[in-house]
């Protein structure tokens, strides 16, 4: 187990990168505590798997360092780094039994058979594989195989970190949920550092204590699920997390207020907004139907069970979505909307106004 520090990490798949665009990963700084559950969240091609492979040692960084407990491991092989990784597609050794699969990493390290038997038995029990230890691994279903991949990581007691690269991709939907809660439960029980890569916000937000949102090779925000929801530091986070995502409206700024469609809206941070492209961002959860407020027309109402998603248009045609709880009346005309001032944010060029930009991007922008 280890505390992981990532310093100034950059990576390019090209032999001689020069421009910023040549980098699949643009300057990342992260500090992860020992025993935490972390998620790397972002769309396909955002660099999250690159970052994961850099941490595991399958790739070596073009620039920067990776430290495990303060020791530089950047140049070490995956084996020397003592990490475990679960891949997108279950990797098992077809010809071996489940037992031999789980024992494989220990046997390669010359652990004696008595000790192996003990460890495999305890891991198999944890993963509910005890009954199939003697069967051939190739006969198992996808989720069983994925458990074996995980088990091969858990069986070594000294792994620094266990990494998951979209591990639920090939799992049936009804088993996804089960395996996900199993993972979370395991994490809390054994308290090993785990890093989970996914493009699915539900998976990331339910698994991790700390979620790192990535886009275009940079970290746009790192925080708890609540922080990401309450105060997105980038419009990308606002849009990517939450369903429906954050409403973004082009705006102007006047004092602490934002001007949208001729209306003045009280915001949390308009004072510090200067220059650039200005946008007002408000999550649908923080817009209410009200007696007085901004005029709007309702375009569409979608019932999603315990609440309804209402699509509305402001006077200038600007579309936005809000969430209305079940049972509340939706007026057909003369609709007024109220924005929660503490959750209405102004973004400058995509970044939260007044907020210190992520160090990763601040440095990246200069180079």
């Amino acid at each position: 187990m280890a505390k992981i520090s990532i310093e100034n990490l950059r990576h390019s798949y090209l032999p001689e990168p020069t421009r910023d665009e040549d980098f699949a990963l643009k300057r990342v700084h992260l500090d992860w505590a020992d025993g935490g559950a972390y998620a790397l969240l972002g769309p396909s091609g955002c660099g999250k798997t690159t970052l994961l492979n850099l941490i595991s040692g399958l790739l070596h960084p073009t620039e920067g360092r990776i430290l495990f407990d303060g020791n530089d491991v950047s140049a070490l092989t995956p084996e020397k780094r003592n990490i475990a990784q679960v891949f997108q597609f279950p990797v098992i050794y077809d010809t071996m039994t489940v037992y031999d699969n789980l024992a494989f990493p220990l046997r390669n390290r010359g652990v004696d058979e008595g000790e192996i038997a003990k460890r495999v038995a305890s891991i198999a029990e944890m993963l509910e594989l005890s009954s199939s230890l003697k069967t051939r691994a190739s006969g198992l279903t996808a989720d069983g195989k994925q458990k074996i991949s995980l088990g091969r990581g858990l069986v070594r007691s000294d792994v620094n970190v266990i990494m998951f690269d979209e591990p639920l991709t090939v799992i049936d939907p009804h088993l996804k949920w089960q395996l996900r809660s199993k993972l979370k439960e395991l994490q809390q029980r054994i308290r090993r550092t785990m890093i989970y890569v996914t493009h699915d916000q539900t998976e990331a937000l339910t698994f991790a204590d700390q979620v790192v949102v990535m886009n275009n090779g940079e970290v746009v925000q790192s925080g708890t699920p609540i922080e990401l929801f309450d105060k997105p530091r980038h419009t990308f986070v606002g849009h990517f997390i939450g369903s429906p995502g954050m409403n973004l409206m082009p705006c102007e700024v006047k004092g602490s207020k934002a001007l949208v469609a001729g209306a003045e809206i009280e915001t949390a941070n308009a004072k510090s907004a200067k220059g650039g492209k200005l946008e007002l961002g408000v999550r649908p959860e923080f817009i209410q139907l009200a007696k007085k407020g901004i005029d709007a027309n309702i375009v569409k109402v979608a019932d999603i069970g315990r609440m309804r998603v209402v699509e509305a248009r402001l006077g200038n045609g600007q579309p936005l979505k809000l969430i209305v709880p079940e049972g509340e009346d939706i007026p057909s005309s003369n609709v007024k909307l109220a924005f929660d001032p503490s959750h209405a944010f102004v973004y400058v060029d995509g970044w939260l106004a007044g907020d210190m930009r992520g160090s990763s991007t601040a440095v990246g922008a200069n180079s």
Partner: protein
Amino acid sequence: MKKTYNNKAWFFVLPVFIMVAFNALVPLMTVVNYSVQETFGDNVFTWSGVQWFSDTLTSDRFHAALLRQLEFSAIVLAIEIPLGLFIALNMPKKGFWVPVCLVLMSLPLLIPWNVVGAIWNIMALPDLGLLGRAINSLGIPYNYTRQPYSAWFTLVLMDVWHWTSLVTLLCYAGLVSIPDAYYQAAKIDGARPWAVFRYIQLPKLRHVMTIAVLLRFMDSFMIYTEPQVMTGGGPGSSTTFLSLDLVKTAIGQFDLGPAAAMSLIYFLIILVISWLFYTLMMRNEEA
């Protein structure tokens, strides 16, 4: 629901049926026809029952040819399969050299079989050929027209040269289709190269290796052209394999009946061995 019968569909199958009939069924039935009759020319046939089959099965000459054939296939497989696999494992997986290696490997496969025989025939000539001269100059007596072991050595070498590429290409295709994650997982699990080969590459190559062994077995068991051009079955009858023996019987001696019986037995042997092998290889598939 009522099934609709539309027999017009058979017309669409008819061309294929006719083709298959002329290609396979009619010739095969002709052979079956010959195998149970005696002929003295002039299209006069007399019934002989299973005479030719029992003659063939008890013939020393047939036994000897069959044994030579089995030995040849065994030797050739024992060399080509491991060698082909070894080359495939050591071929580059990406970069400039991949197409170069692939083209080089496919070259022997593109040469017509009788030309292969001719090339080696000339190359192995003890007085003129490069190979023949070289071996003799090392002090090893070598003459494939006089010494059975020289003839065998040359034939095996020629077949290895000609066909190892096929095994290599099949194995290579199998190897490059193994996802990277397997190698990465093995690295993380601390597997040594031998373990990677034993537990990842070999199991994943099982299907292509089965195909490779089957193809090489069938081809080597039916080999005709190259030894015909190279040694003509000699010296003596030391390299007279089943196919050469069959042709000698059928066309050399014009013993159509025995030759037909022999070819049917020959065919059955290949069928049975291939089936046995395939069943054994695939037996553990879903265990």
